């Protein structure tokens, strides 16, 4: 199911609009433009509630399993590269900033500023996905993708992965705890994967918005679409703000 957020519609071409004094983008069943803007904004927030509860289920599973198998989660989270993680967080926060600037430009009816910030957000989103794919590739090489080919070798014998070993000197882990690292990586891929799916949808809509912005759709005083998409984008950023410490920074000290 395309997880299309509940953005009502672009600037609709209202066929057969009866009385003229309503601006073109007002839908027929709304009394005033403010009522429509309020309604769609409120609808967007309700949709974000469903997203909070959707990710809430994942965070509950993470919370329970982390408490049950803490040593496995610590050792497994050492396999993640904090550098890439921090870079990704910075990229996403900057994209949140450029998105906010986009909303501002749309409110100020500054078309070039809007297009620039939307393109910047678009690029930053792609950079985020790029870094994510690098990390996923690294997991692929180390056989840390949960499933049949998952290997616990880096945990039962940490020397086999010199780069992590030199930094953290993890002790060799007993087999029954090491096998629970697969649970960590499943949660890692489930949460970051679900987050990435939401990023991809966001980037797709961004692409669509850049063209509409070029056509001058969002700088006519009707900012609802850009504002709603901004809410969605900031929400996806908030999810990453929680994912980053929970997955990457479980305990980086020796």
């Amino acid at each position: 199911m395309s997880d299309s957020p509940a953005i009502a519609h672009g600037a609709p071409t209202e066929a057969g609009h009866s009385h003229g004094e309503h601006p073109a983008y007002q839908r027929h069943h709304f009394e005033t433009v403010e009522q429509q803007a309020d309604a769609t904004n409120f609808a967007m927030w309700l949709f974000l509630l469903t997203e909070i509860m959707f990710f809430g289920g994942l965070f509950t599973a993470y919370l329970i399993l982390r408490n049950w198998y803490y040593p496995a989660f610590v050792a497994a989270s050492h396999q993640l590269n904090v550098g890439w993680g921090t870079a990704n967080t910075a990229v996403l926060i900057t994209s949140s900033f450029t998105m906010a600037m986009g909303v501002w430009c749309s409110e100020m009816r500054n078309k070039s500023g809007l297009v620039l910030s939307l393109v910047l957000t678009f690029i930053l989103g792609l950079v985020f996905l790029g870094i994510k794919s690098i990390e996923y590739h690294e997991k692929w090489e180390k056989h840390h993708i949960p499933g049949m080919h998952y290997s616990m070798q880096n945990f039962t014998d940490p020397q086999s992965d010199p780069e992590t070993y030199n930094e953290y000197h993890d002790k060799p882990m007993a087999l029954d705890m090491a096998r629970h690292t697969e649970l960590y990586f499943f949660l890692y891929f489930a949460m970051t994967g679900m987050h990435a799916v939401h990023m991809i949808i966001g980037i797709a809509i961004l692409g669509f918005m850049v063209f509409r912005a070029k056509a001058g759709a969002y700088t006519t005083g009707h900012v609802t679409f850009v504002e709603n998409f901004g809410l969605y984008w900031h929400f996806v950023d908030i999810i990453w703000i929680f994912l980053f410490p929970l997955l990457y920074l479980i305990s980086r000290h020796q």
Partner: protein
Amino acid sequence: MSATIISLPDQSTARIPKTNFITKENGLLSWLLTGDHKRIAILYLISITFFFFIGGALAGLIRLELLTPQSDLMATDTYNKVFTMHGVVMIFLFLVPSVPATLGNFFIPMMIGAKDLALPKINLLSWYLYVAGGILVIYTMVSGGVDTGWTFTTPLSTHYVNTNVMSTGMAVFIAGFSSIFTGLNFIVTLHKMRCPGMTWFRLPLFCWAHYAASILMVLGTPVLAIAIVLLALERTIGIGVFDPTKGGDPLLFQHLFWFYSHPAVYIMILPGMGVISETVSTFSRKRVFGYTAVAFSSVAIAVFGFFVWAHHMFIMGISNYAMLVFSLLTMLVAVPSAIKIFNWTFTLYKGSITFETPMLYSFGFMGLFTIGGMTGVFLGTSGTDIHLTETYFIVAHFHFVMVGGMLMAFLAGIHFWWPKMTGRMYPEKISQLAAVVTFIGFNLTFFPQFILGTLGMPRRYAAYPPEFQILNVFSTAGATVLGVGYLLPVIYLVWSLKYGEIAGNNPWQATGLEWQTQSPPLTENFLVTPIMDHEAYDYEWLEKQNAKEVASVG
């Protein structure tokens, strides 16, 4: 003074208004791409009735199988597939969407004086998602069914079953989003689209009940979505979140599943309560007793509904202390339902009661929902739950609440608003007969199951010890009567589309805004956005309106 309040226009001259939402545009595309909440409600009504009869046929098969102690009508795994499909179809494709998606969609905008729901395109998307979910369920049934029970208990559903768990999961996932979008639409509409003067306490209680149910839809359904995604991932890639051999906890799935599935039962019953508030008030010509109490008890059910889910898991090994917390909160959530029942009862006091079909269904609802609610407390009390859970006592409990409560309310609502939706009256005598037949059939079917439950007959058994046979025979006999009771309305309602009397604007002399416009209504509901200058259920205001009209016409 006749024994009924039906006041129809003179049939010889009355006509269905030329322009209404049905005749405005025609052609299939005008229906399939409509934004009009009324058309979407009709689309939902047709698709929901279709799935109700699939579920009903499956129920018939189950009852036939249980006529004899040994499983001889069908093989046990076929029986398992039949009851699983009965559960999935009835819950996700009939009970969750029935009143909100049909009556809610049709009447909430009219009741608050709006032209349409806030997000018409999302409303249409909700119907398409519902149909997509339905098609997936039909695909599942055609290609071999699924035999995990509608609760998808892990690790059975992830590792020990090779039937179509994936396609059923996807169907439920998609139908879940249909329910989310309906709920989202209602909340935004009720907050932002009320006509001038329509304050929260002038809203009909139908809207309050849907507001509460929508909160549950929006906040509860996503957790079911993530539970199904995790189940699907575990079934395909074999990750151990719920698999004990890999270190996961099967009870974690139970927690995530029941976090939605208990609020889901409130999503199913609250809209029905909304309908009953309307019918009881209209047919006793009185404002609902304790309007604010009934309104706030709906919201209280919605809020408390989120804290009680683990009473489905008392014997599954949750800790004794968690049992205390959840059992206590279950007792609290039972109180608002009691408040509602007593308020409806006292609405009758000093009223002017007539006994048309909707009122008969409402009386049926009040009786059966009281039994259903009380038996719920049996199961919420941890001590008796040990003996009664997972037996036919639970089957009887939730059928009393869902079929006795929700379905009776749905039929009451369909009959009450049929004149407004179609402009034609349903035939009174045969529908009263159908209501009584349904009530008798229902009691004969499900009351013996309480006794079977105390005897300890387990749920979902194709074969049972011989001493349970006679009660099962009674239950199957009752099921046939119930089947007839449900077939009758379809027949005479479809018949009434062509031959029913012309209903006119307000056949029941009801006070809701939806009754102050033509029936079937215009696409934009009202020529001029109404101003709400009176309280809800204000029958004096209605008298003045009628007097003014008579004066202006005369």
